[in-house]
């Protein structure tokens, strides 16, 4: 085992991909000389050179679109977009081209493109650098959306995403980059299909992903002290949703709390909730609960930012309520 960070795990994955496959290159704003806005690609320019670590001008739509074109032309691009808020400038290319070209061409062209971006709040970056819009992307057919929440996934999802013949969007929660932990020396590629049970339990299913996994596990420990044995599901892949794993958990616990840093209205949590009600209504012993971000642009001051996004006390309270306990 080695001690590493989420940031270093992603860097190791990029380095491995660049080493293994000559078609892979990394492109984005400040990925080269600067080393990446979040320091992920630090050192890669010196190691792989400017052809493969490409600094781009600030033109999200065009460098994402160029990634699509390069994928069409036989390359395996990794495009880094600094944050999900900036990716809105490339929404046209992602939604109108990356997600549709295979379909519009009648299956003649696939787009083997990986787009990585930071998402989420927690670092006082205010309302244009801290939103969680991955749920929007998960709305769109034609792309795959994943959210690594652990070191293993940070290390292992990239290669599998590069193997995918279709576009894969990787959402890296910005509070995770410094997360430190143990990783196997021979950490491998991981699947992008299945949700993971991060903590088994029998009383209530806490369903989450990305930046809120840690908070949810923390809540589960507190609940355990109160005699509530919570199961924690890490979605890992937001599109397509692994409903069998979610359903198996809910069938066992008969209660579900969905924790999602997106806004509640029209969110991924709403989708999961609806599917559970549609397909597993009679397995439920209590109404489904949701812990989401408050319906407000993420505020700058720490106390307001903290109040705007899911926190362990709210998760604990929601779980208690589904168990019929108050307070």
């Amino acid at each position: 085992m080695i001690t590493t960070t989420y940031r270093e795990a992603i860097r190791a994955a990029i380095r491995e991909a660049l080493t293994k496959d000559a078609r892979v290159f990394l492109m984005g704003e400040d990925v080269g000389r600067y080393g990446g806005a979040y320091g992920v690609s630090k050192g890669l320019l010196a190691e792989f050179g400017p052809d493969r670590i490409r600094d781009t001008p600030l033109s999200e739509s065009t460098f994402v679109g160029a990634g699509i074109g390069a994928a069409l032309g036989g390359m395996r691009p990794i495009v880094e977009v600094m944050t999900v808020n900036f990716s809105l400038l490339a929404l046209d290319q992602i939604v109108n081209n990356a997600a549709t070209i295979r379909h519009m061409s009648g299956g003649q062209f696939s787009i083997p493109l990986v787009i990585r971006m930071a998402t989420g709040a927690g670092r006082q970056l205010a309302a244009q650098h801290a939103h969680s819009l991955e749920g929007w992307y998960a709305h769109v057919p034609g792309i795959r959306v994943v959210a690594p929440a652990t070191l293993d996934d940070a290390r292992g999802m990239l290669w599998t995403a590069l193997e995918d013949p279709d576009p894969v969007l990787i959402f890296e929660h910005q509070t995770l980059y410094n997360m430190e932990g143990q990783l196997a020396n021979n950490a491998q590629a991981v699947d992008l299909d299945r949700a993971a049970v991060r903590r088994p339990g029998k009383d209530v299913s806490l369903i989450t992903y990305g930046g809120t996994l840690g908070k949810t596990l923390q809540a589960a420990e507190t609940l355990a002290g109160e005699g509530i044995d919570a199961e924690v599901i890490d979605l890992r892949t937001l599109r397509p949703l692994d409903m069998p794993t979610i359903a198996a958990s809910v069938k066992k616990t008969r209660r579900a709390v969905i924790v999602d840093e997106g806004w509640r209205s029209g969110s991924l949590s709403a989708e999961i909730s609806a599917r559970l009600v549609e397909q597993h209504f009679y397995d439920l012993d209590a109404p489904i609960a949701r812990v989401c971000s408050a319906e407000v642009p993420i505020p700058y001051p720490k106390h307001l930012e903290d109040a705007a996004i899911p926190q362990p006390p709210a998760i604990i309270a929601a779980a208690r309520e589904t168990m019929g306990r108050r307070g």
Partner: protein
Amino acid sequence: MTDAKVRLKPDTTSETNTASDRIAPSDRSVRLQPDEHRTRLLHEMIRIRRFEEKCAELYSAGKIRGFLHLYIGEEAVAVGSMQALSPQDAIVATYREHGHALARGISMNALMAEMYGKHEGCSRGRGGSMHVFDAKTRFYGGNAIVGGGLPLAVGLALADALQHRPHVTACYFGDGAVAEGEFHESLNLAALWKLPVLFLCENNLYAMGTHIERAQSQTDLKAKAQSYLIAAETVDGMDVMAVEVATRRATERIRRGEGPMFIEFRTYRFRAHSMFDAELYRDKSEVEVWKARDPIATFSATLTSGGQASDVLVSAIEDTVTEEVAEAVAFAEAGTWEPVEDLLHDVYTPAREAHTAPAVEVK
């Protein structure tokens, strides 16, 4: 007459498109006598014109639905410019791309079937008029978001450059796209990275119904390209030979590794923007002025008056094209509808391919 007909008849014998036969015009023209080459240009333009006239008719008959954007009046641009492209070059076009598709060598049968939405269409019916794709001829759409194709072209050219392939990516777009941010971002990036992109601006004066004077502070479009240090020129888009000559010059320059190039073709669309357009924004007299410069009529007149083609030859071309269009309609009519059970096909690639690294050593 009979001989001319035999010689002029395009290869419609098989559904696999005739790319190898049709899309090597630059190679073929070397072997052809000049007259023969010019006659073929005329033939190609007439094919596009008659195909689209038939499409308009079929639209009224309810056979073709959705949006239909006709290229009539602009044929010289697609036909002339395609002469300079090799089969390995890539094409990115717009939603007004029937002319480019035909000039590139996508079979008229497959194109007409696509107009119908039939499974035998070049995009298997999923795209329709605005989304023509063809892997065999490296035809990457058919893009109906104005300006959306330019970043794709930059990326295709980047892929060629990184793989040391001497290809050009030809990117067609209209004057409307010049107002989009993606135009500026793409020209900047292509110039910055010296990528082999040929930006071909079809300036037909109108972004849908908005005249260029009402949309652009600088109406000299090549000046915008030049501001990114891209070599640029303006060419008469109603003159097929002028288009060909300028495009050859540009592709040669790009193949020498001198970076992207921009050509503005001054052209005009004779028909409405789409089939829903009442044309309230322009005077009929303006259209008539441009129609006097019809690229087919003027070129045909030049050839016949110069003795390079006879009226008999021109009418033989018309006969051949009439036959080809009729065959294409018959082919589309006989085509099949994709079964509804296949609705979800081609959203994702069926089996994830094994990710085998190529034999290229990583430096």
